[in-house]
């Protein structure tokens, strides 16, 4: 076998190894298969809703942060499964440019929600949602419905019900936190991370 053939074979093996396992020389990239590529992301509709202290919360305030926007209700069992995850994810990532924002769809509003927040020791901001908010988000009908919003204020993932486990949320959030403005890591079939330049808006 000639030196040229050996070199070619080694190169091919290295490339295949990189494709299958990721190249170990660079920093490890967290991959979340559920994130949309940048071209498919749409701006998350803004809203103005009151928090527990009566302050108006605009989603636009969160631009520059990765946001987990969770539509939920106190009467929703699956929501109660996720909320402890979100409490922990908020605690671990709040200093990294991340925030959880809960939108309660309880008809009785704070009367039901405030005791729940105290009981569960919810450490993130919660607002009371309304029909116009759910309509703006495509008619949120089932709860929980959770949106992951990137630093540019675009919806990068939608999770309906308990279709995602805690790890999927964590991976998606870590990937979004690693994105830099104008570029993001996307995933091609086979799970290989590829840096992509976002189209200018």
């Amino acid at each position, binding site marked *: 076998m000639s030196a040229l053939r050996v070199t070619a074979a080694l190169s091919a093996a290295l490339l295949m190894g990189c494709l299958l396992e990721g190249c170990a020389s660079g920093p490890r990239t967290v991959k979340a298969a559920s994130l949309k590529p940048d071209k498919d992301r749409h701006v998350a509709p803004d809203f103005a809703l009151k928090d527990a202290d009566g302050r108006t919360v605009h989603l636009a305030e969160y631009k520059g942060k990765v946001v987990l926007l969770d539509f939920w209700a106190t009467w929703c069992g699956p929501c109660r*499964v996720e909320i402890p995850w979100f409490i922990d994810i908020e605690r671990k990532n709040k200093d990294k440019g991340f925030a959880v924002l809960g939108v309660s*769809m309880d008809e009785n509003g704070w009367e039901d929600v405030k005791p*729940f927040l105290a009981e569960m020791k919810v450490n993130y901001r919660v607002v009371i949602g309304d029909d116009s908010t759910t309509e703006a988000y495509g008619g949120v*009908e089932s*709860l929980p419905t959770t949106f992951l919003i990137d630093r540019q204020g675009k919806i990068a993932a*939608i999770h309906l019900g308990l279709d995602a486990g805690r790890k999927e949320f964590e991976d998606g959030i870590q990937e979004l936190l690693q994105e830099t403005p104008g570029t993001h890591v996307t995933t091609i079939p086979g799970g290989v991370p590829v840096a992509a330049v976002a189209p200018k808006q």
Partner: protein
Amino acid sequence: MLLLSLAGCLSLLWPQSNSERVTVGQPRKVVGKRNDPVETRIPVAILEGYHVNSNTPSEEYLIPLKVTWTSLGALEGGQVTFPKPEKLTVGDIPLSVFTGNIDLKVSFKVSAKAAAGPGIASGKLGYQACNNKACFPPKTVEISVPYQVQ
């Protein structure tokens, strides 16, 4: 455009989102004389793959299956006997639920002052449905019980 895109995404992810998850059938006509105790059954169908909380949910925060009478006409009472609920666990949460087709037994008494003739007792069935991954906002379904006072 954005709304359409979002709505499209949600409908693709949740194809049954517009289905009625609970329907109420026609109860058998109640027939009786003044002061007679009478009863009927309200057939309730819960869509396959879904459940509703029973009349006695496992947790205080869960919304029970409940019948509320808005107009009894010549009937009195309207006490509902629910079937035995099933046990179901979602996440780590044990639930008391109904699934499939159930009958709600309703007991009335024909009023002592009822005029002879037909009528309709009206009410609402309140429920809150879920599947094993998500829940849907509480809803009500109309109930109509036809009766004949002899």
